[in-house]
């Protein structure tokens, strides 16, 4: 009997090994949120990002000087202010909306360079050279002078992982600025979409989209993009709208982290959207 079993194992050893390795892989996949895996990832990420940073800085040796960082910072701050003013143009008649308005421009910005990128149609991730030492925390938004790029998903002492908008695991609450309708923005592998907007709302191509007041992860009124397409589904009752982001996410080399502190209680609930 033992001989028979060992002969079978020997004959199909590749398949047995494949099965074992697949089971281990799937177990690791399902334990992504476990502290042991997180610890291991933090260690590996922090160690290897140093190498990436050296190569990256060597590759970008011909890039702009220090004043560029200052200019980019001013640009990002102005972008926030412009968007705030544009927003107030839409809602100026209602004192109530003025009271609920939060000042996004008051958040401090932390400049960061992109050290490496994971390019994929489904899982867009950046590693940046700012970490917990710089006050970066999970859930803080990453922006550039055009608009939002993503959200901090993982932090080590010196480096952080930014989950970009081009990541199917990231869903954020947004508002179509002109008509004040809220929705959840997600990446379907091809484009950014907001689903299930009732057709009674007149969403037009070109309407601006920004982060919503309802989001506890992100501060409100950060520019996201413009409506590029509107598709009617479900017997003409609902729209799916496509969004073209303001920021050229694929080409981002440096960005800012908005040091906003999300509400802890609501955050626990909303962070589930990132998983």
């Amino acid at each position, binding site marked *: 009997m033992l001989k028979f079993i060992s002969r079978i194992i020997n004959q199909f050893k*590749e398949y047995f090994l494949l099965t074992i390795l697949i089971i281990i*892989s799937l177990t690791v996949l399902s334990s992504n949120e476990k502290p042991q895996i997180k610890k291991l990832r933090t260690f590996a990420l922090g160690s*290897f990002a140093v190498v990436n940073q050296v190569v990256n800085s060597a590759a970008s040796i011909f890039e702009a000087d220090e004043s560029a960082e200052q200019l980019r910072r001013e640009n990002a701050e102005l972008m926030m202010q412009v968007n705030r003013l544009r927003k107030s143009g839409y809602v100026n008649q209602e004192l109530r909306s003025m009271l609920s308005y939060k000042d996004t421009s008051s958040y401090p910005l932390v400049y960061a360079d992109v050290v*490496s990128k994971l*390019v994929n149609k489904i899982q867009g991730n950046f590693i940046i050279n700012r970490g917990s030492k710089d006050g970066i925390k999970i859930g803080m938004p990453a922006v550039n002078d055009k608009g939002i790029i993503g959200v901090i998903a993982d932090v080590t002492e010196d480096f952080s992982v930014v989950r970009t908008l*081009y990541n199917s695991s990231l869903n954020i609450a947004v508002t179509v600025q002109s008509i004040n309708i809220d929705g959840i923005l997600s990446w379907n592998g*091809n484009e950014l979409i907001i689903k299930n907007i009732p057709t009674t709302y007149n969403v037009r191509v070109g309407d601006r989209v920004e982060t919503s007041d309802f989001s506890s992860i992100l501060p409100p009124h950060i520019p996201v993009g413009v409506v590029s397409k509107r598709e009617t589904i479900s017997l003409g009752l609902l729209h799916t709208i496509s969004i073209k982001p303001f920021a050229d996410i694929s080409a981002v080399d440096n960005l800012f982290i908005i040091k906003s502190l999300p509400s802890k209680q609501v955050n626990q609930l909303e962070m589930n959207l990132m998983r």
Partner: protein
Amino acid sequence: MLLNYLRPVLYFIPLAVVQLVIVPLISIAEIAPNVILIMIVFYTLKYGQIYGMITGFVLGFALDLISGGLAGAFMFSFTVSVFIAGYFYNENKIEINTASSFYLVILFIAAAINAFLYSAVANTNSDVGILYLAVEDGILPGLYTTALGLPVVIFNTRKGIE
């Protein structure tokens, strides 16, 4: 034998840097080649299916950890794609398999399966269709990876002539 396993691990470090720093610069519309898979497929055709699976599994896990992506995704996709590439291993045809256009065919199959599987396990959005994943996130990255595998064939062919 141990050296055979050590070699891809040593090559992995510079290739991982290339994958995470240089490859994003040459990606087209989020379609990027996988330079680490080029190496793993090459060694699989040289040393066999079991060797390839273990190498793919270990290096996949390492890439998962250092890329900030989903842990286990590359581990899974590398293991399965290299298992399929390992079917083409023949100890009497190592030269033909690694220094001819046949290598590119195997590489394309492995790369397309790898990219498809990676996206399939990493995807959490139910709106993404299987057909879309197979074409846009399977075949296209597969073709791109195959194009980057061309220098491997040229280099090995020249080495064979010399």
